[in-house]
């Protein structure tokens, strides 16, 4: 953490990584969170309404 400026990560990251193991599959919690967020973002991008879409109907 950056001590001098009083700034740091919102979550304390200064520890060993956490891992999830299922048989031969082992994945860090950090990587799993990123993968879940990517899937969630993908689904949200397909379903969420896009601002101003109605006004763009005239676009070619």
């Amino acid at each position, binding site marked *: 953490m*950056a001590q*001098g*400026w009083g700034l740091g990560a919102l979550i304390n990251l200064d520890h060993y990584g956490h891992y999830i193991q299922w048989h031969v599959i082992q994945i860090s919690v950090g990587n799993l969170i*990123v993968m879940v*967020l*990517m899937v969630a*973002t*993908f689904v*949200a*991008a*397909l379903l*969420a309404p*896009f601002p*101003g*879409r109605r006004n*763009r*109907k005239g*676009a*070619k």
Partner: protein
Amino acid sequence: MSTDIDRQWTSRIRHNVVDKLPPDKLLPDTQPAYVASWIYVFGVTTIAALGVVILTGIILALDGPQWWHSSSLGHFVNSMHLWSVEIFFFAMVVHLWGKFSMAAWRGGRSLTWVTGAVTFMASILAGFTGYVSQTNFDSQWIATQAKDGINSTGGGAFFNVLNLGQMLMWHIVLLPLAAVVLTALHVIMVRVKGVVPPFEDATTEVSA
């Protein structure tokens, strides 16, 4: 009737480029209505993140490892470099999923798809060489683990991950150049062929 000037290589290239990519196609004022969807924003998000990656990389290169390891501003720029890479890959993967689900290689867009795929692979290599160029214990650990994998493929004869100088040169010269050039080609291909339409509109597409 063509003149001598029309037959010059400069004239021929210019006419070819303008025919294939006229200025209003290169920088269009409008896009098809179906582009108004969040799934279409991840390509440009990836390019924006790449811009921050390059900019912060240039700042890191100016002052070097001592600076990014020991000063507050160095830590900040180093973190910006890392997190812009995270956003770059995050957005690129969502962009890839989106385009895969649209079968975005339709309508003669195979070269667009291929340049995107090769850019992805070059970016993975750029990310990897960045991790082994940090000049800390993390990079040493990653390099010593990766060497066995790469040596098992035979690639270790040409690509020595324990050679910091070689990895740093790949990371700051060769791979960024490849990523930027491939991205530019990818965007040009998107401009030439247009954004892939949804499946129900595909019948209006002209196959190239």
